[in-house]
């Protein structure tokens, strides 16, 4: 199969028929997804529905069983592609264990710019401090991750992902390991980053956030994207019974 003809409005990320199993357990059964430039796409779905798996496949942290993923028109699932080079263009923040505990906040942020992108130390640190300043953490540049609150640590992780100016930012439930009062500060940062024009694909359980900040909401169920569209449609007037069931459970859990 050849690359699709690059349209004028080529999506930053295009996923077609993505299939992934762990052993005998199929997790993704043919996912199709486009993420256009400067858009925020959120993935919702029950726990275990494969949101993390999808993000890990996009970042080539997992090998796909079938299907293709294009980043800026390049088929990154081609085994001849240098996976490290692809990852350099993608920023990722996971749910937990993001920061390196043996490095200070500043060193966490400057590690990739210096070691991967060849930026010299002075410039990398200057940029890192500017980024930290934006999230009000410039004073903690020399602190170690275990001296930060969960929210501060997660915001640092987001800043670290942004420090290399990625084409695409993947966020995997960046707030679900946090106490409720810390969720707000992290989501505020994500919102700010999105308004700055970053292209974002994020898995989240925060329906309120998906509703207000996302351009597209995708509902993942049984290994396929059952429904996708603008948040008003998917979250307010879903077409599928499964989507309605899921949203009812979310409402019952008090998360909408």
């Amino acid at each position, binding site marked *: 199969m050849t690359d699709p003809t690059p349209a004028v409005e080529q999506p930053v990320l295009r996923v077609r028929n993505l299939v992934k199993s762990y052993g005998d357990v199929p997790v993704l059964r043919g996912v199709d997804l486009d993420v256009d430039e400067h858009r925020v796409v959120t993935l919702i779905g029950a726990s275990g529905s494969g949101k993390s798996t999808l993000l*890990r496949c996009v*970042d080539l*942290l997992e090998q796909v069983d079938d299907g293709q993923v294009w980043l800026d028109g390049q088929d990154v699932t081609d085994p001849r592609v240098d996976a*490290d*080079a692809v*990852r*350099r263009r*993608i*920023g*990722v923040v*996971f749910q*937990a*264990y*993001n*920061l*390196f*505990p*043996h490095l200070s906040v500043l060193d966490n942020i400057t*590690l*990739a710019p210096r*070691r*991967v*992108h060849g930026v010299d130390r002075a410039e990398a640190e200057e940029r890192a401090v500017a980024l930290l300043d934006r999230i009000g953490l410039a004073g903690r540049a020399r602190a*170690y*991750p*275990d001296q*930060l609150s*969960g929210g501060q*640590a997660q915001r640092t992780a987001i800043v*670290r*992902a942004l420090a*290399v100016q990625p084409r695409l930012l993947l966020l995997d439930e960046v707030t679900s*390991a946090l106490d409720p009062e810390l969720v707000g500060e992290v989501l505020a940062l994500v919102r700010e980053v999105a308004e700055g024009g970053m292209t974002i694909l994020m898995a989240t359980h925060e329906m309120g956030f998906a509703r207000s900040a996302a351009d597209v909401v995708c509902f993942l169920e049984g290994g396929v994207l059952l429904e996708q569209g603008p948040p008003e449609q998917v979250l307010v007037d879903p077409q599928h019974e499964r989507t309605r069931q899921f949203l009812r459970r979310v409402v019952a859990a008090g998360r909408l």
Partner: protein
Amino acid sequence: MVPPVSEVEVARRSYRRSRQRRSTWVAVASTLVFAAVLVVGTVSAPGWQRTQESFLDPGVARRALPLVLEGLWLNLRVLVVAAVCVLALGLVVALLRTLRGPVWAPVRLLMTLYTDVFRGMPLIVLLYIIGFGVPGLRLQGVPTDKVVLGATAIILIYSAYVAEVFRAGIESVHPSQRAAARALGLTHRQTTRLVVLPQAVRNVTPPLLNDLVALQKDVGLISVLGAIDAVRQAQILSATTANFTPYIVAAVLFVLLAVPTARLADWATARARRRQQAGGLL
């Protein structure tokens, strides 16, 4: 800075202080009683007189001390060289065992074989094999010095242990850390060097220090090859004086050498535990 405290807190603090004083006294008293029982028990043993003469002769001890110290200096030099080599070799073996990819299969196999063989072999046997077997080969360029051969045997055995300690440390680093590093675009090697290894080394510092304590006394085993170290000196002196006191002198010196390292190991363990508890979540 310190805000004035309430009366309740003042009372609580004074109570805690008095409890603290009491605990100190109890500890001192119980130690004294225990020591007294031990001393009295030993001294009143029927053979005490003779034992004291042959093991704790102050005159012999005084004469033995400078010579045993001289021997200990050799042990110390062997220790430093061995410790450095063991750390380096152990780390290399551990890293080679974690290499991935089919090309490295023979290397991985070889390293596994190495750790299996040398962890299983008694040190004393290897000392004999290398100390007496290698010179017997009469190979050109191979050292025949007893000290070098003895140190080689010790390094081979200890490196196998330390390699396993390092490997455990590498495996104890949470896999998400590797994923986070790869996600940042770091290569496999950069990830190992910049993210995994620093954390692994930090995690295994306490067990490594314990191995160092063991190594400190095991360097005394080079005496079986005839190297004139502290133990060998004690052996010679005890033969010439027909008295065991020189051995006691050597033993005390080895123990004194081990105490600082043992304390350091305790301190590192306590610090590691504190840090683990502090940074529990992230």
